[in-house]
């Protein structure tokens, strides 16, 4: 018996967030997806008619579109075995005390309440499909910032949701964007009114608990003119033998002179397919920044994009990808320069080890009218051993003669000179390797809020264990 206990203990040790709570969903649509299920989801949520129409239209497109034909192999992903909607609790709780005890345990483990108590503006946690806990500090509410889950926003601010929903991420973009639009549930709705600056980061946390679950959160962020916001989200899931699917859609509208930074740390366990569609638009003189960390999951396909629609708009993408074991990270970014004097900056850092695959797949496009635009792209990859692979597949298109693109990429192993130097100072090979990796991703980690930076360090630490040069 003792040995069995030990092996269970060992299994749990494998993945830091690999604990699993025994939460029976209150409502579930069962396996697979049909039009009836789409109707059922909409009815369960008492949605307005127009939203049901959007869902049904997206479902039709979803059935027509083919699976992506590039990058990772998705043939093991059985879309008919995914549970498309389940609700863990009957109502969305406003106060922490009302959240059911076992769900609370999960969040205690991943540290949401502490985070909230400390200095975060508001924390929202999405458990399976819908938000169970959403709150925002009173002062922000007084400023007019709306921060809730998207379902609640649809009830309370239907006009705002209707105006922006699906305007950037359309179902035609790809199969999973269509799937999300058909069955979306939960996610974050954030509206920052004109001239309002949210000085402290606003945070959300997503977690898949049951196996074979699909999590389809729909996030909608609108930053009105002259406003600014810094939004942070984290994602985890426990270990399961069956595969789970996470197909989120995120839309961010950054209006004239506004600023938005969207930070994600994705740490799904190694049975999650993370196939996300993220798109932002930046109007005149606005700045949009994606800060994107991909550490876990089985397969990630994520190409956040920014449409630079107004003159002098600026887009930034800062990302790291870490692939170890069977992880396949296919990430990158798309910058569409649609107006003159726009600029974009892309920094992508990838590390792969123990057979992991890290690909960068990006597009920079400057159309005829985007005169005097500039773009700078940097992709660096460290391949740590013989089993790992990395491809860099960028596309740089300039359709006018006044713009500039600079692109640089480098793929290499850990520098032997650096390693030798550090070891000559008395560090072990493992310590030296870790230090070099930390230095490599520093441009990314020093952009994170402190506790996220610490979590990232812990995660990298954990991934780097037993790995020597």
């Amino acid at each position, binding site marked *: 018996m003792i040995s069995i206990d030990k092996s269970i203990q060992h299994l749990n040790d494998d993945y830091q967030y690999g604990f699993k709570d025994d939460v029976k969903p209150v409502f579930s649509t069962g396996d697979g997806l049909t039009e009836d299920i789409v109707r059922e989801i909409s009815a369960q949520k008492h949605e307005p008619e127009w939203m049901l129409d959007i869902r049904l239209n997206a479902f039709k497109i979803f059935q027509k579109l083919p699976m992506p034909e590039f990058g990772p192999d998705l043939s093991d992903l059985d879309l008919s075995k995914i549970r498309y909607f389940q609700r863990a609790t009957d109502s969305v709780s406003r106060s922490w005390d009302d959240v059911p005890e076992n769900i609370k345990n999960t969040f205690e483990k991943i540290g949401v309440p502490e985070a909230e108590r400390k200095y975060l503006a508001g924390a929202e946690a999405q458990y399976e499909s819908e938000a169970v806990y959403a709150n925002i500090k009173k002062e922000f509410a007084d400023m007019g910032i709306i921060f809730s889950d998207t379902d609640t926003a649809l009830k309370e601010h239907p006009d705002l949701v209707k105006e922006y929903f699906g305007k950037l991420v359309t179902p035609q973009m790809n199969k999973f964007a269509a799937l999300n639009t058909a069955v979306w549930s939960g996610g974050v709705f954030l509206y920052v009114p004109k001239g309002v600056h949210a000085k402290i980061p606003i945070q959300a946390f997503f977690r898949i608990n049951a196996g074979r679950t699909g999590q389809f959160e729909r996030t909608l962020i609108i930053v009105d003119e002259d406003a600014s916001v810094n939004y942070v989200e984290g994602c985890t899931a426990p270990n399961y033998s069956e595969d789970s699917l996470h197909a989120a859609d995120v839309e961010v509208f950054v209006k004239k002179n506004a600023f938005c930074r969207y930070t994600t740390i994705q740490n799904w366990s190694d049975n999650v397919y993370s196939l996300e569609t993220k798109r932002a638009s930046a109007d005149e003189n606005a700045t949009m920044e994606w800060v994107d960390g991909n550490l876990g999951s089985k397969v990630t396909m994520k190409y956040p994009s920014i449409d630079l629609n107004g003159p002098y708009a600026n887009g930034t993408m800062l990302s790291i990808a870490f692939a170890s074991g069977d992880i396949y990270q296919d990430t990158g970014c798309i910058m569409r320069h649609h107006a003159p004097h726009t600029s974009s900056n892309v920094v992508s850092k990838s590390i792969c080890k123990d057979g992991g695959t890290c690909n960068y797949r990006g597009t920079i496009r400057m159309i005829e009218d985007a005169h005097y635009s500039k773009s700078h792209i940097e992709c660096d990859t460290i391949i740590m051993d013989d089993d790992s692979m990395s491809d860099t597949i960028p596309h740089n298109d*300039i359709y*006018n*003669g006044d713009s500039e693109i600079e*692109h*640089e990429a480098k793929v290499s192993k850990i520098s032997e000179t650096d390693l030798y130097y550090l070891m000559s100072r008395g560090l072990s090979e493992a310590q030296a390797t870790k230090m070099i990796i930390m230095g490599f991703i520093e441009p990314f980690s020093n952009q994170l809020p402190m506790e996220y930076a610490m979590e990232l360090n812990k995660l990298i630490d954990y991934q780097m264990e037993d790995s020597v040069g």
Partner: protein
Amino acid sequence: MSMSVQEFALSHNEPQWLTVKRIVANDMKNTMRVPAPLRKFHFESPELNPRSIDTQNLAPKNLQDLGIIMMDLFAAANEFPELIQENLMEKAIYWRDNALNANHLAYLQSGGFVFIPKDVCVDESIDISDLVDHNMQEKHLLIIAASGSEVSFTYKDSKQQPKNDRLMIEVLLGDHANVSFYDAAMTNSEKSHRVLNAYLAQNANLKTYVGLFNHGDSRYYSNIDLDGMGSSARINLVSLSDQNQNQVVQTKIINKSPNTSGLISQRGIVADKSKTVYDTTGQIKLEASDSDSDQISRLLTLSPESKGKIDPILLIDNHDVVAGHAASVGKVNPEQLYYLKTRGIDAKTARFLLTRGFLTPLIEKFPDKSVQEHLLNNLEERIHG
């Protein structure tokens, strides 16, 4: 009067194995794919007319003395059947790859064969331009440099060209062979398709220098296999496009063995309403440890309407490597332009001097002075006007 493939083959007395291969290729081409990017260059099959074949060794006397063979491809097919049968469109360019290749083999009109024997070194560059008939649509060159040889070749287009022009070049390098290939592409054809594929054995070294100055829509494709340990390849290319020209340059070096090294360096000028695409791939296979792969691609756009596109791709399966790419698309540096103007040079001339400076370092490497001049004159005509 046009002839069938079979009649054409009989007319110049080519060996039976080649005729059979051509007929098979002609039959099979309809079952093969035409990859999307090649569709524009899937020309109609040319009219076949009888040609007289020179069966002599066409190499200059001093090279003949070294054992060098330069011959018409069809004559060589009779003379050296085993060499040609094994290598013609089998190794560096594979005829079954797509319908375009199969059609090229079936309707091959003119070809040249060059063989450099073991350990032969030639100092001056060998001009192989006249081995093929420039008036023909489907042209082919097969070059074999045996182990230890050291040579350089120059190929330049003549002014008269067919409406559609295709030249496929295969270069096979033996162990320790060292080959430089200078290619001045300057056709007036409406569409021009140039392919240079190479296959390198151990420690072989290939450098190609390409000046892509065609007037019509053109596509340059090069695929170099670093198959032998320690082999290395450099592709150096400069291109110029103007008016409504559409230009695609697709280059690829594959590191298949340890200690191999590949470098692709490309510079292009895009003027007027033209468009240039650089599609560059460096691939390092799992077996190729201790290798490097590097790319530098730069495009200079001269007009607000010029379009440039660079796709620098790296496919890396081995960790013990150094791979990188740098790419940029941009206009003429305004500070340099301003400096030249303060020295009393008018804007147009200043711009021309800067673009000329952008391409000259490579053009000056061409060993044949007349080719250098020709390229520079072409540049001046088209940019300075």
